[in-house]
Structure formats: structure tokens, C-alpha cells
């Protein structure tokens, strides 16, 4: 499969919607106990990953600019998952 099979405008928009669903915890991916209330689910603080120096070098300057504009941890996660660094292998 080549990139033009998945990188159409509509599919990119869908990817960003999914990035937001994952990043903000709405997708319910982080529930360890299925019975737990949504509020009890701990959202991964991906921002803490950035303390890792190696990871920092993997992120481009544009992405860093975007991450600096995040207002909440949810948004931070969303931008990271939606970043070009995350799109390409």
C-alpha cells in the first residue's frame, strides 16, 4: 500500500478526529476495569514522556511549537498523536 491510498484529505481529517479521541481519553482505551466510571480513568500524561531526551530529538520544531500551544494535557496528547512525526514510519 502506498501513501496515496491512505493520505487523502478526508482520511487525514479522520485521523485527527481519532487522535483527539485517543488523546483525550474519550475512546475508553485506558480503562483497566471495565466497570470503572469514565471519570475514574487515568489519562496518560504523554507530556511526561518529553523528559526523555531521546524522544525530544525525534520531534520536529513545528510539532514542538504546536505542543507549546496546548492548553490541557488532553490537547497535548491530541497534537502529539496528530503530528507528522506520528504519521510516518
Amino acid at each position, binding site marked *: 500500500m502506498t501513501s*496515496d491510498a491512505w493520505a487523502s484529505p478526508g482520511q487525514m481529517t479522520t485521523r485527527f478526529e481519532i487522535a483527539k479521541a485517543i488523546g483525550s481519553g474519550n475512546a475508553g482505551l485506558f480503562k483497566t476495569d471495565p466497570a470503572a466510571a469514565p471519570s475514574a480513568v487515568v489519562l496518560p500524561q504523554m507530556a511526561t514522556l518529553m523528559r526523555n531526551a531521546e524522544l525530544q530529538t525525534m520531534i520536529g520544531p*513545528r510539532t514542538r511549537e*504546536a505542543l507549546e500551544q496546548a492548553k490541557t494535557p488532553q490537547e497535548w496528547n*491530541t497534537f502529539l498523536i496528530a503530528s507528522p512525526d506520528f504519521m510516518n514510519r
Partner: protein
Amino acid sequence: MDRRHLLKHTLALPASCLASRLMAAPMAQPRMLLVFLRGAYDCANLLVPYSSSFYYESRPNIAIARPDADSDSPNPAACLSLDATWGLHPVLRDSILPLFLKGEVAFVPFAGINDLSRSHFETQDSIELGQTLHQQRNFRSGFLNRLATVLGGPGPSRPISFTDHLPLVFRGHTQVPNLALKNVGKPGVDARQAQIIAAMYRDTPLARTVSEGFGVRDEVIRSLSIEMDQASRNAISAKGFELEARRIALLMREKFNLGFIDVGGWDTHVAQGGATGYLATRLEELGRGLAAFAQAMGPDWRDTTVVVVSEFGRTFRENGNRGTDHGHGSVFWVLGGSVKGGRVVGEQVPLDAAHLFQNRDYPVMNEYRSLLGGLMARQFSLSTNQMDQVFPGVLAQDYGLL
């Protein structure tokens, strides 16, 4: 800047102002929508060859009855006579039949592609690529994309695919946005976030794709909010394909001149039904949607042509499960405000055992590229040279439909 340059710019100014005003002026723009019935629909129960007794022998359980001459209490399960040979499935009585009688619909039987794989995927690919068969295929060049490229040359052209994925038919040189209209809701990613995300892609090869994706999404939501206003006023709630078709019309009236949508669920191997049943329901929904599209296009229907295609036909004889299997020739539909319709056109043969292809299917006598090519050439006033870029090596044939 020196005076000479200043003068040159000043002199150039009025001309460029004029040009941009001309570009912005509303104009009657030719439009085309391609509807792809994926799964190969059973054309012999859409366009019923009712004059053929062989049809009734071949389909003891699923045939559609001959037209009923008794006008006082007509048989509701009988096909609707279009001419001395062909009848229309009765579920299309209120949707497609009125358009046919107005001369805005034509059917082209024995249409299709010469690909003989009888595989859905293989044949859909072949159709969408529209390249010479049995040669090295270029999977990055679909024929609607090549058409968009040709149309994009001198004038403004806006293609769009109303699908979740960008289909093969629209892949290629020209960037084509895609957006499915089944469930358009409020997006999760808001305007500020969209802007920040788009900024991350500014210097990447995906920059245009990303901004186009957000742009089309916003445009569509803006257009459809008008639809919601109108809908609440006249309280019509359409669903399924009809809703999609109305939305497509709204967008094609205002913004786009070349569209594509696919409709699935036609692979009726088992219990397809006759005058009622599974296939009848699918055809009814499709017919209602296309009629809604025609209506919703309003005065622009005059400049619009819709072509309905499918990858291949189905076996002429019913199988042991009261269904039909993969066949060859199909029936294409051509609809539009300027279509010279109300007739069944193209090369035809009588439907008896001797004329079936490989003793099982409709033959292909109207090759789809020459048919579509002829329609495109008329619709968009394209030269032979331009058509050769869309369908290389194919002589576009004028069926006199436009």
C-alpha cells in the same frame, strides 16, 4: 522600485481586477456525478427484457412479470413498459419512471468492460483505472482524476469524492478531496486545534492534503447547516442514500463540478427476490435517491449528468439459491436535465440462449470507456486530444445522449 516598474504595475492593475471579477461571476457550469454500484447489480431485473420468453424460462422464481395492459387495476408486481422490448422494475414507478417519461433518463444495456476475471475487486479496479487491459497498470491514475486534470487546465474545476476513502478512480495527479456525507456531525477537532494541527504540516508533503481536508470539512458543514434550516422548515426527513443524494446535490450546486459516490450491497447470490424483496428494496432506495438528487439540483439539473455504473452484470439464469452469480455485461443509467433520454440506447441483441455471452451472461457491446468518453466530451466540450488523456487510445463514441 523605480518609476518604470511602478508604471508597469499600475497599468497591469485594471486588467487583473477585471479578470478576477470575471472569474467570480456565476456561470452555468457543466457537472457530472458518477455513481458506482459496487457488487455488480442484477441489471436484468432493473431493465426487464419482458419480450424475451427465454427470460421467463431462465428465472422461474425471480423474474419480473410482463407489463400489465389492464389500466384499471394494473398488477403492482408487473414491470413498467418502456418500449416494446424493455420494462422497468415496478419499485421505480414514482422515482425513475417519471424522469424517463420526461426524457431525462436513458438506459444503455450490454454496457461494461471487457475484463473477464469476474472478480469484483479486479474488475472494479480495471474500471476505475480506465487503462488499456492486459498491460502494465498504473494504480496511481484513475480516469476521473485524469478528467479532473484535463478540466483543471484552463478553468476552475472542483472534483470531490463523497466517500470515506479516496477511490482508485480519483487517485492521481490532481489532488481530490473526499468526504462521506452519511454522518456529518459536529467535528471533534475545533477550529483552533485544526489551525494548530495544519501548522505542524506546513513544510511537509502532506501540507495541502491536511489543509484541504479541514477546508472541505468546514465548507460542507457550512453548506449543510443551510440544509438543516430548510429541513426543519418543510419537515422532510430523508435517510440513507436519499439523504446523501440531497446533500451531494447541495454541494454540487454550489461548489463542485465533478463528483463520485459508491453504493454497496448488490452482490445478490442468495434470495434476491423479484418484484419485492432484497434487490427491490435496494433499487427503490437508489431510485428515490437519484430522483431526490435531480429535484434538489433545481435549475442546475439542466447542466448536470449522472451516470450509474456497476463492475459487471449477473448471470441471466437464476441459481439454485434464487439469486444470480457473477456475469459480464451490465446496464448503465444516464440521467440529467439535458439528457436526450426516454429511451434505451446502444447496440443490442435479442435475449435468447444463442445470444448470451458464454451461454450465461449479457455480452458487452457498448464498451464503457467509449460510452463515458462520449458523454464527458459532450458534457465538458472536450477535444479528441483532451479525451485521449482521459481514456488513452479509446475512441469516444457519441451515443447522442447529450
